[in-house]
């Protein structure tokens, strides 16, 4: 089954370790992720300024590409892209005046009215494959792996684009259980990693990283599972700084797609663990999940 897929810029550069295991895993589960043609950067952040329409052009153009293909669903892997695309999509659905202006401006494209549905791969796993069916495909259950699900913000906030309940999300817990791992809930699982403040206030990022990682550690987690490349970068760089300054022990940070690929018994090369922060290879080797 073919799924229109939007990778986003980061997955093609820094976050190959998020994308490659995903493409391989989804293929193994019967879903071919087909990149939409001529996609452009989604704009990274949804513009919050009231009258700023030019920054909506980029995400909406990608949705138009999907509509052009005759498809009505777009799957994304990057949590930030999901957030931006989904909110721009809502704008087109709900605000008639802005919709008209944007369609009139992009007169070289077909008109768009929000016909496409934007989903995250986790939603595809939950809603189209189902946790039971997924569990049945697992060849290498991730036994003994105590991993804390870290959501960050963009999959859960704002409410109108959330893929799960922001107060008590369960989607990653269910995902980890399907893979045979031991999810470790912790207090800071939906705490913001600091996002783009890494550029303006990098010291604050280290503080957030310490709070989040300490919380996970104190609940017994051996690793963190992430969905967003920016969270990965912030927590990874944050803990590196902490390690340098105060000997903080770095925790392996993993993408949910890497765990998925491992559990499905795919070749670990596709996971590119060498790109991860916190060297997960040794932990995985210890658990007999990686050789």
């Amino acid at each position, binding site marked *: 089954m073919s799924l229109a897929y939007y990778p986003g810029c980061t997955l093609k550069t820094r976050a190959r370790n998020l994308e490659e295991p995903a493409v391989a895993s989804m293929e193994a589960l019967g879903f071919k992720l087909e990149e939409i043609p001529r996609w452009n950067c989604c*704009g990274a952040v949804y513009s919050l300024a009231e009258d700023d329409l030019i920054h909506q*052009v980029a995400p909406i153009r990608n949705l138009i590409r999907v509509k052009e293909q005759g498809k009505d669903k777009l799957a994304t892997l990057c949590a930030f892209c999901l957030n931006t695309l989904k909110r721009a999509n809502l704008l087109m659905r709900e605000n008639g005046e802005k919709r008209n202006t944007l369609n009139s401006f992009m007169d070289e494209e077909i008109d768009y009215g929000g016909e496409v549905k934007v989903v995250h791969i986790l939603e595809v796993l939950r809603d189209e494959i189902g946790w039971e069916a997924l569990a049945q495909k697992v060849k290498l259950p991730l036994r003994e792996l105590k991993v804390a699900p870290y959501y960050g913000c963009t999959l859960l906030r704002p409410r109108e684009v959330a893929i799960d309940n922001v107060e008590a999300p369960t989607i990653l817990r269910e995902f980890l259980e399907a893979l045979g791992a031991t999810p470790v809930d912790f207090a800071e699982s939906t705490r913001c990693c600091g996002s783009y403040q890494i550029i303006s206030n990098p010291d604050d990022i280290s503080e957030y990283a310490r709070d989040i990682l300490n919380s996970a550690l104190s609940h017994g987690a051996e690793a963190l599972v992430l969905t967003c490349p920016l969270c990965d970068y912030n927590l990874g760089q944050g803990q590196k700084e902490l390690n340098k300054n105060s000997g903080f022990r770095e925790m392996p940070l993993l993408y949910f797609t890497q765990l998925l690929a491992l559990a499905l018994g795919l070749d670990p090369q596709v996971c590119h663990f060498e790109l991860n922060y916190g060297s997960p290879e040794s932990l995985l080797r210890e658990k007999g999940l990686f050789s």
Partner: protein
Amino acid sequence: MSVKEEKKNPVETAVKEKEQVAAKLIPIYIMGKRYEVPEGLTIMKAMEYAGYILVRGCGCRGGTCGACGTFYRKPGDYKLQVALACQKTVEPDMYIAQIPFFPANRALYDFTKLTAAPEEVFKLYPELFRCVACNSCTKACPQGIEVMDAISALKQGNIAEAAQLSFDCIQCGLCTSRCFGELAQYHMFQLARRIYGAGIVPRAEHLAEMVKAVNGGKYDRFLDVLKRVKEDELKKLYQEREVEPMVAGEDWKPEDTTYL
């Protein structure tokens, strides 16, 4: 044609025929001023007909140097059109303005010190990431290049795709003149094409080997023979030479393999 008509003075006939086909004059507006110019002229020729002496904004006159980038509009239509003045013929009521030059940022670099990594482009042109995918650049391209797509490829670190998509670029600069993010797309593309040619495209190894063989004197003795052969014999040798057929398989070999 009858014998009688054939005997008419050919020059006379030609002149008469020319007079019968006088060019129709049409109005165009050059920088807001109205001129009547012969239909069928290019914008460039029409400007010169109107009395302009073009020192900038004109170059090869052959559609390839990018000097004559031109914007124009038609009455009653807000849409901005683009063309190369040396290629596009005038239309009635065209409203024309040229952009002979645009102050675009051109990064200074020592090409010999660059690697083939996309990060080199990002470092030299950080404004690349100011692109908002508005597509104004694509709309401004007289060569029909998908400029936004090529910038998008660059942002994604795909130098090869940016180089290939921008192949037809003649550096006219019209894209830059319309860019929201103040990118100098054509300078970025030129850098991409240079990196692509020097660092990404595979080398033709067999070419290097051949050059080495030739310089090493492989064909000297054959050339010496040819130098001493008489003209008639030379002509005969040339006409009877074996030629690789237009559509030859990869494993085609000549019958005479002496020169291989």
